[in-house]
């Protein structure tokens, strides 16, 4: 009898515990899980060059069902400001951040420190050239793009660029991306016999941009990033480049427009949509799976000539840029 009573109490207790668990599960289900929040910090975040990148982020956020927020920033960003921004995003409840780093070892150190708090994913390039940073990067293969640009130039000259003078434009020389692109370009162009007359680094905004016109005349100008390319396109359309042919890397509709209007000969477009999509997907994977180690993501690039700007595939690239 006593045994029966004990059994009865045990069964009732087990059932009661199960009832509580199911009730909790119901409440949990009704309340829903809080969405993961991922913040994105890139320079000049409102610039059209980020359209495809942001579209990629938005699509990934929808696919992964997370909240994504792009922090509004200006063209210049110091390490301190970046740190401040990341910290404030963490305070605002960000579970991970996607950052276009400020180039330099100091920045890398700071980002590594942040990575200990929440997952940090870098986009476009690594903070410094060293591979030991341990921070994952989603970026195009910058060296390959530089190379591809030079190869397209060679193609136009049927491989004969002996004695041709080249000018290089880039937004900065601090970032590893810029260095790699330039290196890739130089490696191919100089090997083919072309001479780089000048390489200018400028933000191409405001007064300083006037200086391009004063530079010595060259046969071709290679613009290694979107800002440089739109600046070069602008100058070329007003014939300020003295008829130099423009080749460039870019991912804005302006860059495509200059290609469409024949001002730019050839455009290399990095797949910015996938930089955004894959960086955010990688962050989400890291948040949802503790064992997951963030991976680098290298995205492809597309070589577009004027005549194939409106092929089906390239129309989609334009579509992502137009978002």
């Amino acid at each position, binding site marked *: 009898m006593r045994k029966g009573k004990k059994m009865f109490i045990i069964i009732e207790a087990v059932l*009661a515990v199960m009832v509580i668990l199911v009730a909790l599960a119901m409440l949990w*289900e009704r309340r829903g899980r809080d969405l993961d929040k991922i913040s994105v910090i890139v320079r000049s975040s409102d610039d059209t060059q980020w359209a495809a990148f942001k579209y990629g982020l938005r699509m990934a956020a*929808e696919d992964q069902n997370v909240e994504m927020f792009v922090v509004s920033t200006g063209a210049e960003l110091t390490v301190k400001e970046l740190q401040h921004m990341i910290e404030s995003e963490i305070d605002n409840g960000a579970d991970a951040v996607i950052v276009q780093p400020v180039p330099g070892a100091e920045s890398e150190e700071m980002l590594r420190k942040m990575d200990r708090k929440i997952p940090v994913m870098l986009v476009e390039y690594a903070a410094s050239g060293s591979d030991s940073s341990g921070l994952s990067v989603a970026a195009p293969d910058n060296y390959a793009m530089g190379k591809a640009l030079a190869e397209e130039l060679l193609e136009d000259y049927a491989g004969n660029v002996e004695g041709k003078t080249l000018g290089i434009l880039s937004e900065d020389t601090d970032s590893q991306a810029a260095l790699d692109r330039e290196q890739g370009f130089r490696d191919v162009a100089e090997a083919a016999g072309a001479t780089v007359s000048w390489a200018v680094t400028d933000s191409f905004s405001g007064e300083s941009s006037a200086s391009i016109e004063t530079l010595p005349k060259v046969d071709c100008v290679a613009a290694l990033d979107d800002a440089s390319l739109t600046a070069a396109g602008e100058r070329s359309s007003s014939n300020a480049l003295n008829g130099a042919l423009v080749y460039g890397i870019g991912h804005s509709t302006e860059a495509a427009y200059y290609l469409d209007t024949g001002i730019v000969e050839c455009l290399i477009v990095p797949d910015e949509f996938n930089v955004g999509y894959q960086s955010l997907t990688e962050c989400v994977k890291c948040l949802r799976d503790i064992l997951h180690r963030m991976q680098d993501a290298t995205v492809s690039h597309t070589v577009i000539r004027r005549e194939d700007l409106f092929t089906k595939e390239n129309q*989609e690239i334009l579509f992502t840029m137009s978002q």
Partner: protein
Amino acid sequence: MFKNRHFKHLEKLKPKGIQSTIMAAFSVISISIMLILGVVLYMRFSTMSREETVQSTRKLMEQTGENLEDYLVSMRQISDAAYYNVIKENDLSAQDQDIQAKMNLLYEANRDNLQSIAIYNDYGSLLAAEPVAAQKEDPDVTNQDWYKQAVEEMENMHFSTPHIQNLFDDGTHRYYWVISLSRMVELTDNGVSQMGVLLVDMDYSAISRMMNQINTSNNGQYYYLCDSSGEIIYHPRQIQISDGITSEDSEAVAEYKDGVYDRVFGGEQRKVIVNTISYTGWKLVGVIPYDTLSAGTINIRYFIILIILLMAMMLVIINRVVAVRISSPILKLNDSVKEYEAGEKPEIYIGGSSEIRHLGLSIQSSYEQIDTLMKKIVLEQNERRKSEFDALQSQINPHFLYNALESITWMVEGERNDEAVFMISQLAKLFRISLSRGRTVITIKDELQHAQSYMNIQMIRYKNTFSVIFDVDPEVYSYCIVKLVLQPLLENAINYGVEGMDDSGEIRVTGREENGAVILSVSDNGFGMSEEQVRLVLTDSTRIRKHGSGVGLVNVNNRIKILFGKEYGLKVESEPDEGTTVSIRIPAIPYTEENRKIIEEGQVFGKEDSQDKGAQETQR
């Protein structure tokens, strides 16, 4: 080995008590019913919920389809207006101002949804456009899809898939995503009729806005739009599809007619709802993954599990109460029986339902009966012992022996040697049969012999003052009888019947078989007895006897009943002054060694053993 262990384990699990058996049975039945009920309910609810989801999706799609149709109809109306009201009525060269003004009017009225309206001639040259913008250097119009489609099928209007408009340069450095509605038109240029193409470019954002409005849920359900060949016009994950990150089976779905279909795509089962947009042949497709359908029912699942658990809790309590109520009286009865058996408490529990109460009463009465029987057996045993003792005593009645021997002495002294020899031989016969080698059951013949020897001795002693007649059917000689039952009867007949009568006393011994029974009677013609005396002869064993061996009729009666059964025994009939007849009634059992043993052992020894044990139990 394993099997044995397995069965042992099962045996351990087997409920032993009535309460746990009832409880287990009730619980298994009720929980099974609940589970079946729960599953059926869940299936019903989830089916309803799925149907509801599919229905609401269909309604939403129908609504959106209508909106899209309205939009496309309005575009066609613009195209018709441009054609019939502007192009057909005016000469392009002569009335270009009119044409421009009318086209401007059309454009302005619909500018929210329109990107541009343009007219090209059959060489692909731009004749008129609204809004006015610079044409690109060489847009290669004739090679653009919309132009080719219009030329190929002149009689129809053609809706293109979305594409970048590659016609004008408005200086904004932007590219517009449009859907082109193109048709072949007949136009008049400088009075010459020629063919041309009218292009109405619709802003894609109008369509994407409509689609975005319904693509708001983030539970996996989505809607897309494709043309009749499956080429995607709008998809919430358009770029992911073209990048190969994900895929869509639009080509297969485009072949479906309107309706709801089950499809498995990419390892995922899903419901696909197809709605065709009229005229264009576009398909508006809603996709509901099964995961989404079941996600909607997850709360119902939890709710049903919760209800089942709560009901299980209640049922376990109810089952226990019922089991306790049913089993409690049985357990109490069982406990009281156990206590009774252990000799602790002689009271049997009586309570609970009528059946249990009846059972308790039955057990109680049977225990009482056992008690009574036990006491009776002890009593019978005692009586038997006493009668045996009495019988033994009668075998060697010293008074009788003394009288007989004294008679022999007189005979010898009076030199009546023959008589003395006869007397001695009769005495010897008497004792031989009395002893009978320790047997209790002998033949009737031997018993009669014993009676005769006894009577011979008595007749000598009483100097033949009475006569004795033996009238026994020889057929009964070979039947069994308890020894020394006639002698007390004869003794009584002498002492209370014929003693004191002058020569006229007569004792008659008769014997015959009657309906399977043997009747031996001893009759005398003496003084007889009153009715009351007759009644007391077989019931009052405490009577002080005046004469005789002391072995009363009560004793004889008891011995017969003990050995042969209650229905046998003595019967006394008497009339005062007429005489008395005492009859012995015994079963007619042929005398064999086997029958003798059965009667002696079965009735005497077997009974004695159990009676002894019973008596001991009762004493304890």
